[in-house]
């Protein structure tokens, strides 16, 4: 393949729209041609910059209400009242079930575990979130190990931007990301794999504890949970891995970010 042909197909290559033979032809050309490789990295950087920086304009809740009134009329199904008015950046269908589950959980928690600390209550929710994701095979909304896809996707749906790093080189490949609803707010959930085990990492802004708090561990029903805070975010890792391995994961994640 010559430079002209490579550059004609470079965008399709960056967009992963070429078939296998096309892709490998460009791979080979880029490996041997510095000039084209420089053009490619520039394209890739532009693409990342667009995905990271371009504003995604979600619809304002008032617009949703206006359109409902003008289409389905004054009597929409009761269940269709916009939850999204309260969770404007969330697709409510995705979290509806999670909200319901959390509501039930908090209620039982209130009755049975009145003596537990706030962190222990959240740890219970985190475990429930982990189990829920495994039960329904709903580990990811964006299934990709590409951190540059997962991070902007989450940032668009949430009011904060969680650090997302693929840790495949140290044995914890990123499976993808999704949204969940914990501790009374929408949170980022990252799924990682370690051998045959899945780790869920929940992240949300932490307004309660100032500064970094020592890592805390919780265990129940064969699940282990780690909690730590960093730079205004609280991190909850949960898995059926043993505590030592889960700590390795937390260490790898914290130092890679």
């Amino acid at each position: 393949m010559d430079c002209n042909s490579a550059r004609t197909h470079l965008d399709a290559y960056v967009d992963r729209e070429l078939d296998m033979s096309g892709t490998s032809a460009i791979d080979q050309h880029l490996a041997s041609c510095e000039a084209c490789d420089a053009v490619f990295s520039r394209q890739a950087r532009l693409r990342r910059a667009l995905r990271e920086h371009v504003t995604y304009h979600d619809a304002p809740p008032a617009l949703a209400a206006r359109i409902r009134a003008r289409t389905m009329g004054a009597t929409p199904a009761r269940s269709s009242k916009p939850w999204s008015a309260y969770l404007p950046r969330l697709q409510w269908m995705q979290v509806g079930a999670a909200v319901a589950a959390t509501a039930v959980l908090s209620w039982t928690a209130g009755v049975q575990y009145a003596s537990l600390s706030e962190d222990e209550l959240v740890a219970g929710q985190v475990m429930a979130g982990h189990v829920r994701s495994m039960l329904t095979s709903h580990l990811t909304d964006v299934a990709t190990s590409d951190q540059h896809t997962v991070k902007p996707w989450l940032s668009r749906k949430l009011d904060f931007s969680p650090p997302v790093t693929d840790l495949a080189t140290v044995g914890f490949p990123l499976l993808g990301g999704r949204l969940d609803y914990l501790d009374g707010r929408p949170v980022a959930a990252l799924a990682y794999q370690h051998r045959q085990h899945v780790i869920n990492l929940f992240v949300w802004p932490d307004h309660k504890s100032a500064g970094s708090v020592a890592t805390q561990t919780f265990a129940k029903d064969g699940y282990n949970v780690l909690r730590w805070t960093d730079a205004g975010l609280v991190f909850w890792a949960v898995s059926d891995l043993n505590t030592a391995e889960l700590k390795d994961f937390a260490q790898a994640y914290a130092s890679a970010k």
Partner: protein
Amino acid sequence: MDERSRNEKFERLFVAHLDAAHDLARWLTRDERNAEDVVQEAFLRAYKFLDGFRGDNARVWLLAIVRNTYYTWLSKNRMHGLAVPLDEENMSAADSDASYAGNEASYSVDALLHQKDAKRLINQALEQLPDEFREVIVLRELEDLSYKEIAAVAEIPLGTVMSRLARARKLLLQHLQHVRQEA
């Protein structure tokens, strides 16, 4: 279809794709009020033609309606000079330089993107792109559509999707370089 199941079908579509519809309209009109008008009109059309939709890709169907609604709206409002074209001549002169300037250009753009106002600069760069280039970038990078889906929404052949995206990215890079040179 009775009214209830019709409304349920619409509600599913509506909840799932309202944000995407609004985002596309907002980037096409470059104005919040006009975007809301376009989105509202588009959903009224979608509601009207709901029975006719049998495909499996509701998002593509809906975004195509949003886009068509925008162009209808635009032709009605053209006299207000809402579309601001780029200086095409200037751009094509710089075109061949930019595509082969390799390292130099990539360093400068990279530096630019590390600036504090990267977000503002890159939003501005996208905003000044002509409609036909802006829309393919939004569909690709914000809505994450495949070339095939973009072709269906924009009603253009697959090859045109590819060449428009390539051209759009070149224009974006050029704009960012101009900004840097002026800074």
